[in-house]
């Protein structure tokens, strides 16, 4: 791998904006960077307005950095199932920091709450505020994401305060029927949908091809709970976080031979270390660091691939990464097609250069 890199003549520095549609078009030159108008994903989007709903279904998404997650979209989809049966409207409750388009996710009404003053423990104050909101709108169902410290916590607090048995781990929802996993996942319970439902991923189809109104309603006012004080985030060693939870992963392939530089860079960036199968086979990194179909399927926000060509199994493992940066000497490697930022260079030389740059930046700051 390395030998081949050395023989290749150094390319001239240039920046190319790659656009696959343009590449297929023989008329367009490679340097043409004029913006291309892409067709809208859903050409005809039906506008849905519900003026006089007969009931209200409240959905409280968990969000990730102000955006709806896949589970949140399923949650709103599940709320739609219940609301449509009751000729009602879906009311979505989000913090003011939410920047996603809630209308296209299926929200008819939106209630926002501003992040409470520092030190307020959100679940403890959100639960009574949501009960109050449900009373005000005569809302019967409240739906939450089934996550232990997220929606699952708030939903169970509300169920305990209302004295109802919630449907936990709801895997399927239809009119008059909620299917909940029980008994450690060996059995399922079929029951009428209760007031509080805790939704698992894949419970209902997310809304597509429709745009709901997402009409803003007055903000939710959160009270205070003096019993719990939120002291804020604790600094953690981000490189020790399990691969599956990591936010930034730096990953090495067969093109990496300077392992010292790799480990130092990972520690400096606060990134979890990953590897391709070849690297784990050779024993450079332990097996639990292998990313791909036969290793760990990861979904970090950022994935930094050094010297990975991108076998299909590896690309499957990173299919849900948000941002991919690839450094490889072969511009035609599949990994370079996948990358948001593809750099044709020798990983061996880029790693120390990046390390130097970070150190220099830190000294300046």
């Amino acid at each position: 791998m390395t030998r081949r890199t050395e023989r290749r003549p150094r390319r001239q520095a240039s920046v190319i904006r790659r656009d696959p549609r343009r590449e297929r078009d023989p008329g367009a030159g490679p340097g043409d960077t004029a913006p291309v108008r892409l067709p809208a994903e859903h050409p005809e989007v039906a506008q849905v307005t519900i003026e006089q709903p007969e009931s209200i279904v409240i959905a409280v998404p968990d969000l990730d950095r102000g955006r709806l997650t896949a589970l949140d979209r399923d949650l709103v989809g599940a709320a739609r199932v219940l609301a449509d049966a009751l000729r009602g409207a879906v009311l979505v409750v989000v913090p003011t920091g939410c920047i996603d388009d809630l209308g296209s996710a299926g929200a008819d009404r939106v209630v926002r709450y501003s992040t409470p003053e520092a030190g307020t423990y959100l679940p403890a104050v959100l639960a009574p505020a949501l009960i109050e909101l449900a009373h005000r709108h005569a809302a019967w169902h409240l739906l939450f994401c089934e996550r232990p410290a997220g929606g699952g916590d708030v939903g169970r607090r509300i169920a305990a305060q209302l004295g109802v048995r919630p449907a936990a781990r709801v895997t399927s929802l239809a009119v008059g029927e909620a299917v909940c996993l029980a008994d450690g996942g060996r059995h399922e319970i079929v029951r009428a949908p209760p007031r509080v439902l805790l939704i698992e991923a894949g419970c209902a189809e997310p809304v597509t091809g429709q745009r709901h109104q997402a009409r803003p309603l007055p903000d939710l006012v959160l009270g205070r709970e003096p019993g719990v004080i939120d002291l804020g985030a604790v600094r953690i060693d981000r490189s020790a976080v399990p691969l599956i939870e990591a936010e930034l992963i730096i990953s090495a392939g067969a093109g990496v031979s300077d392992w010292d530089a790799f480990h130092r860079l990972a520690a400096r960036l606060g990134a979890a270390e990953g590897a391709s199968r070849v690297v784990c086979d050779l024993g450079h990194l332990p097996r639990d660091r292998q990313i791909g179909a036969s290793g760990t399927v990861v979904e970090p926000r950022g994935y930094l691939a050094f010297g990975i060509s991108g076998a299909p199994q590896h690309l499957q493992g990173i299919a849900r990464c948000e941002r991919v940066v690839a450094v490889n000497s072969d511009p035609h490697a599949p990994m370079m097609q996948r990358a948001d930022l593809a750099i044709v260079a020798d990983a061996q030389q880029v790693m120390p250069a990046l390390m130097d740059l970070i150190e220099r930046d830190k000294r300046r700051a």
Partner: protein
Amino acid sequence: MPDVAVLLSVGRHPASGRARLADLDARALELALRLAEVARVHAIHAGDPNEPVLRDYLGMGIDSLTVLALDGDVSGALAEHLQQLRPAVVLAGCRAECGEASGMLPYSIAQALQAQLVADAVSITLRGESARVIQAQPRGGRRALRVALPLVVTVDRAGPQPRMSAFGPAQRGQIRAIAVAARSRAPSIPSDWLERPARVRPRRLLRVQGNAAERLRSIQLVRVASAARRIDADPMQAAQAIWEYLREQGLVEGEPGPDSPSRTP
């Protein structure tokens, strides 16, 4: 010395179906044992006192285990027992491995004790009239909370790995059974609910429109970045581009990205 109660249940192995330590309850016991120097630890189980699996909890290093001998709904009996004991902290796994397993028990106990509740804890330290709890957050994050006592804490998979169970202490430990008249003999699952073996649900398929190559790619779950940039450069320029990109996307510490308004400092 404050009292710490830990609620233990009998688990079931997901593959073999045999009775075993409930993993999350074992983690809760591990958290409790880490408080053993500053608090009295009471291990409590509600159910059958002759269940052999309970010995495995004793083997983790507790002298005795109180069993509320009953069959039927446990939450009423547990709440009553805890109201008498008045522990400063109640620890439990966030969900049982058998039965309805709705994860509501800690919440109804907190309601009965009028205690604060913290979900998904990683560690606890007691400080006089309050406790400092570290709570797990998504993406491996951690948050510190100061909570007034009494307090109910649930433990999920982020909790500490339970210690091994040793044979000697498991045999020496005492199981003290308390006969409790179950308040309601009602079955824990109402008659209008239907219980059946769980079905494997088909994975949702992505409906992709496009040519054959695009559909194939979607099956392989490989996404091609649409607005990709390619840089063909010397190492220094490459490093510069990577560093700028990471900062622009808010992927490195201290540089919040454009789309992260909720990030805590």
